[in-house]
């Protein structure tokens, strides 16, 4: 489990947000790949139970930032992370942190659906069973609850024991979302979750994200500004590995403080 607690390190008006459950704060985060610095000291405090969109041009470090939060860089040789990331006030990179425990609390959804080669039901129940958060008798209820939650239940209830690879791409992504939610995470990291999907499914998933933010903190990387505008409460704008602006979505889209934000929002750059 996460052991070392760190004091609240909020920034500006959001002091204290980082230490409540689901609050995520990064401070002076540098990420290096060999000699190449990808993030140059990023600091931001993401509000709990809100949707924060991370936007910026290709290669600006959006995904790198996202993957720092659940330590996905750990398994990439040559990646180094310095600075601090806290989730619910606890230092993610602190000594004694069990990465598997962290990832139970911080779920992640990828750009492309990656269901496991197991039955649809097992896809949902595998992680809760492995973490011991559900008992054997609780499995079917858990599976139904989370498939209903993502709106997939009616489509798959008759083929729970079948392979997920016969589902459509959008359905597969919903299954992956259900799989992640089944661990009841405090934070949800979404890495361009709809960029490979059709408009209908995208709309459905966007609705889900809004709805889910009532109980989890959502960080969503997107290159789609219109999407950020539709779903985000806050927007973090990155360029070349540095934060340009971090503001409530309305401010960011209507009256950005930075000239570069204005250029990006209006489509002149990016």
């Amino acid at each position, binding site marked *: 489990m996460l052991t070392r607690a760190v004091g609240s390190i909020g920034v500006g008006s959001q002091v204290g947000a980082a230490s409540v459950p689901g609050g995520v704060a990064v401070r002076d985060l540098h990420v290096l790949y060999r000699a190449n610095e990808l993030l140059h000291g990023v600091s931001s405090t993401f509000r709990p139970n809100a949707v924060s969109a991370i936007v910026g041009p290709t290669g600006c470090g959006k995904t790198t930032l996202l993957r720092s939060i659940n330590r*996905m860089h750990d*398994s990439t040789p040559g990646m180094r992370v310095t600075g601090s990331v806290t989730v619910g006030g606890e230092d993610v990179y602190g000594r004694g942190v069990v990465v598997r425990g962290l990832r139970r609390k911080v779920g992640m959804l*990828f750009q*492309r659906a*990656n269901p496991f080669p197991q039955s649809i039901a097992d896809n949902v129940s*595998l992680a809760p069973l*492995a973490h011991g958060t559900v008992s054997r008798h609780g499995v079917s209820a858990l599976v139904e609850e989370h498939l209903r939650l993502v709106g997939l239940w009616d489509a798959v209830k008759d083929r729970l024991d079948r392979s997920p*690879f016969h589902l459509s791409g959008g359905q597969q992504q919903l299954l992956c979302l259900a799989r992640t939610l089944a661990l009841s995470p405090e934070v949800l990291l979404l890495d361009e979750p709809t960029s490979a999907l059709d408009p209908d499914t995208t709309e459905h998933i966007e609705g889900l994200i809004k709805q889910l933010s009532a109980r989890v903190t959502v960080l969503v990387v997107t290159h789609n500004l219109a999407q950020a505008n539709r779903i985000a409460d806050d927007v973090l704008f990155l360029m070349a590995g540095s934060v340009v602006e971090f503001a409530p979505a309305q401010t960011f889209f209507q009256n950005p403080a930075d000239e570069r934000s204005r250029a990006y929002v209006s489509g002149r750059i990016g």
Partner: protein
Amino acid sequence: MSSLRAPTPKGGLARFGDGLDSARRSPLLRRLRSAIFWALCGAALLAIILPLLDMIVTLIQQAAPLLNLNLLTHGSAIDPAHLNAPIGVENGILGSLLLGLGVLIVAGIIGVLAGLYIVEFAPPRPRAVMRFFSEVLSGVPSIVVGLVAYTVLVNGPLQWHYSLVAAVISLSVITIPYIVKNTEVAFDQAPRSLREGAAALGLSRLTTARKILLPTALPGIVGGLILAQAIAMGETAPLLFSANWTDANPVIKLTNNPEPYLTGVTYNTLILPYVQAHELAAAAALVTVLIILLLLVMGRAATARSKRMTERMDL
């Protein structure tokens, strides 16, 4: 590419030219080159296939008088006083099946676990060392394995004598590197996105390997086990020193009991001064080749299934 440009003919075909790809200036030449290339490929293919066909046809011709059911129901013992009595390779087939089963258990368990460890769990340095040793092991000539088996297991400190255990261990030493390699490749082929998905859910490496990667790796692993069977089926040198030979049917007795095997029929009958013995040698060789062919086809099918599974996953 300058060689393509050099023989460009003047006039006629030059209308294609004018800064275009030089090959387009002489479609005739290009077609000729292409034809020569494909002819060479075809010749190389024939050079591979013809000897194999020739070998099988020759074996069939030589073994023809013995190709009937007796081949499967009689042992390889030849009685010089009754040279026309029915003879066959029953003891060889049963012996090789028994040895194959032993290899499947011993080499299968060790090889799959070692391969899994190397590809999924070992830190980089031990991984490199283990890979290196596995590759060296696969390069050790089988007669050397036989020699070591003889001096350690058969007639050395262990004193197991010619035996099933000695034979299975020496065949396992030879086949383990193949099983390790196939297991490694099978797990390695599992898409990266599956590993990431599992890691993001906080699953342990063991759970990931067992529940998520194994289903995609399984056909490849099975392919490796079948390949190991084919190799074990064809090995002779180490068995001469570990199983020795008997004309009798195999007995499941771990130590102190020589065992028969298919290639041993050929080895031990070819030196006898009887036509029937030579026919039996050819028949045993034919059966060996056919079984290996069958095993390889099965192995290929299993590996192909592995590829198809990951393709259908569209990851």
